[in-house]
């Protein structure tokens, strides 16, 4: 148990140390003091609405990362989250503004619609993969681009768009379909759907750890042949996991739309999907890890503005994010190899002695 704990803590520690080193070098190269830069970033959190913004972004990133993690569990790389959440948000905004329903039920229906639309957008790569053997990475990348085009088309003023001020958007969602946030006055408003992210993470954790479906998903990811021998239908698992992943991805845009914008606008945020992939890698597909990863990501994203004050281009935050992800995957690989070597040494020692081997090997695990 202690060995397991050590290896699960060693890797993130190694990764953070390594990426901190990389970022420090990058900061030094651009002529800034790393400690000072970190100081102003942390100091920035206390200003204005930054803290609340970080909480809100964390929730959005968590949803995106959970969508990515569901795919990763099965060795599926759903790059299409970007397109799925865009389509989900757009369809939900259009449907939500047209419906007349009592409060609560209204936004619940909107959430379901968003999720279904995201899943539907993920259905095509799933079908292509299962029936035609098209790699999901390529088909989802292409569908991301098409989603951008489709969204731009559907928001045209002769389709579903209307002009509000200088911005084209869909019809606003009526009051009954909006989700109240927690108001902190000058500090901003925490989206009500932050709790949705927490709930999805909890459900994800339970399903993965405690249900047959989660077990089959992980089994198919780790060894497709073993899973098939155990009676798992690989094609069905591919379709289901991509659909679930797309369904969660469809929710990514919802905190912003139901909590702040109340419509899909032309400048709807892009890039959450790719961030989600990075965060899922960072959190090793574990719900708690994903929560911390999202928090770190949101902190870097929101606090990077402060870097301008110390004369560092804020884009360095993107380098930090990229190098953290890369260090994490490398660190996990190194630790995995160290564990494997240690295990081999231990077994070698056990077999080398003339003592009864089974008892020791079996007993050590418990």
């Amino acid at each position: 148990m202690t060995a397991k704990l050590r290896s699960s803590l060693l890797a993130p520690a190694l990764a953070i140390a390594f990426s901190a080193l990389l970022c420090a070098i990058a900061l030094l190269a651009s002529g800034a003091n790393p400690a000072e830069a970190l100081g102003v970033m942390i100091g920035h959190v206390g200003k204005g609405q930054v803290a609340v913004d970080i909480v809100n972004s964390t929730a959005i990133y968590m949803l995106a990362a959970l969508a990515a993690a569901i795919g990763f569990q099965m060795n599926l790389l759903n790059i299409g989250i970007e397109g799925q959440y865009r389509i989900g948000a757009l369809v939900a905004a259009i449907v939500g503004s047209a419906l007349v329903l009592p409060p609560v039920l209204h936004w619940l229906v909107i959430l379901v619609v968003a999720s279904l639309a995201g899943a539907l957008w993920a259905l095509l790569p799933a079908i292509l993969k299962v029936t035609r053997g098209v790699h999901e990475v390529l088909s989802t990348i292409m569908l991301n681009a098409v989603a951008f085009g489709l969204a731009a088309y559907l928001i045209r003023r002769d389709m579903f768009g209307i002009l509000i001020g200088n911005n084209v958007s869909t019809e606003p969602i009526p009051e009954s379909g909006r989700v109240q946030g927690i108001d902190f006055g000058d500090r901003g408003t925490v989206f009500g759907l932050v709790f949705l992210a927490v709930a999805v993470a909890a459900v994800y954790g339970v399903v993965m750890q405690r249900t047959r479906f989660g077990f089959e998903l992980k089994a198919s990811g780790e060894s497709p042949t073993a899973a098939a021998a155990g009676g798992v239908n690989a094609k069905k698992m591919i379709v289901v996991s991509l659909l679930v992943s797309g369904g969660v991805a469809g929710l990514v845009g919802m905190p912003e739309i139901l909590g702040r914008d109340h419509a899909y606008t032309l400048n709807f945020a892009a890039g959450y999907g790719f961030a989600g992939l990075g965060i899922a890698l960072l959190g090793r597909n574990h719900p708690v890890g994903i929560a911390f990863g999202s928090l770190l990501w949101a902190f870097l994203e929101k606090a990077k503005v402060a870097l301008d004050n110390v004369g560092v281009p804020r884009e360095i935050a993107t380098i930090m994010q990229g190098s953290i992800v890369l260090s994490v995957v490398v660190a996990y690989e190194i630790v995995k190899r160290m564990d494997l070597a240690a295990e081999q040494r231990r077994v070698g020692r056990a077999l080398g002695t003339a003592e009864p081997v089974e008892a020791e090997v079996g007993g050590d695990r418990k």
Partner: protein
Amino acid sequence: MTTADARPGSSVVTMPAPPRRRKLPGWAIFMIGVVAAVGVLATTSYLTGRPALTSSLTMQNTVTLGVPILLAGLGGIWAERSGMINIGLEGMMVLGTWGAAWGGLHGGPWVAVLSGAIFGALGGLLHAIATVTFGVNHIVSGVAINLLGAGVTKYLAMLIFEPLSQNPRDSPPIEQFATFSAQPLGDWLADLENEQRAVISDVAGLLGGLVTRVSPMLIITILLVVGTYLVLWRSRFGLRLRSCGENPIAAESLGVNVYFHKYVAVVMSGALAGIGGAALVLGSSPSIYSEGQTANRGFIGLAAMIFGNWRPGGTLAGATLFGYADGLRLSAGPGTVHALLYAAVISAGLLVIWQLWRRKWRTAMLAAVGAVVVYGLYYASDELPTQFLPYTPHIITLVVLALAAQRLRPPAANGVPYRRGEGD
């Protein structure tokens, strides 16, 4: 295609598995493909009255936009033939665009190409270190490199280009390659094109686009295609490199240094993607680096490679297809892109005839249904919504992948982790 029924004595069933009929050599298939494509386009252009489909301007745009995709595809061939999946091509291409603009500012277009290659190769080196040395999942490392490539370029652009161009997203314009035309051939072809005669003018337009205002970038690219073929398929080094992609453990047992070959392949892959980025910078007018310039072309290059069955000639065909779809949008309006639907109907019709002849009834049926559906679309609409135009190559990629994916054969050990000395 006359070899279809050249199976001698098929009534005498003595062998359980008759030997596969001889296939046409690759260059012949390639030429037939070119003729068929030109024929379909010429017919479409004639029937729909859209000369822009085969104008020399369209062809020039095809070349300008196809070259970056082709270079990325070549990069994909190098990496994947050695068994390394390289999703990071996009990030390496982005690095290449920055490197090209920076090099071009200091030393003209040739330095731009070189510096683009070096920046792309650095991205490739990072991918190689992560995947070959540390055994990280290839796709995961590729995704991280795409993130990192975009971040590093944005940062460097802010740091270096903003003081010069007053814009964090663009570089100042760099010197372009001097273009040249094969005269008097070009003028003669232009005259022929302007006469608007069926087929002849179409061929003249397409050829004319290839020989007028030719950039040295095209020459470099063609040399790289031929070079890739010669190195990978006609040299000892290439044989070893490909053996790492087919069965690294067997290669190791024969004394091949698998790590070394994989490193070379991935670094080379990055360099080619970087040159692709340089081609993008030099091909845009004015030639500048701008943020988001690559617009997924690295991924489309990967699709072109798959379309081309992991071979240089096929990748060239795929890149031409995607470059054409992109170039047509620039040189002509939405109406002309709409005429592509008509071309798709004709292609599907040809496919039906071909499948009927091969007695593949089911495929023929599917193709016929497809043709009817696409014709319905064509008939029902006048032009494609402009919002979809930039995504024509993406949609074509999807269709092509869906139709072609099962007839392809990727390298056997593509993406499979390999550790030295762990084979049984």
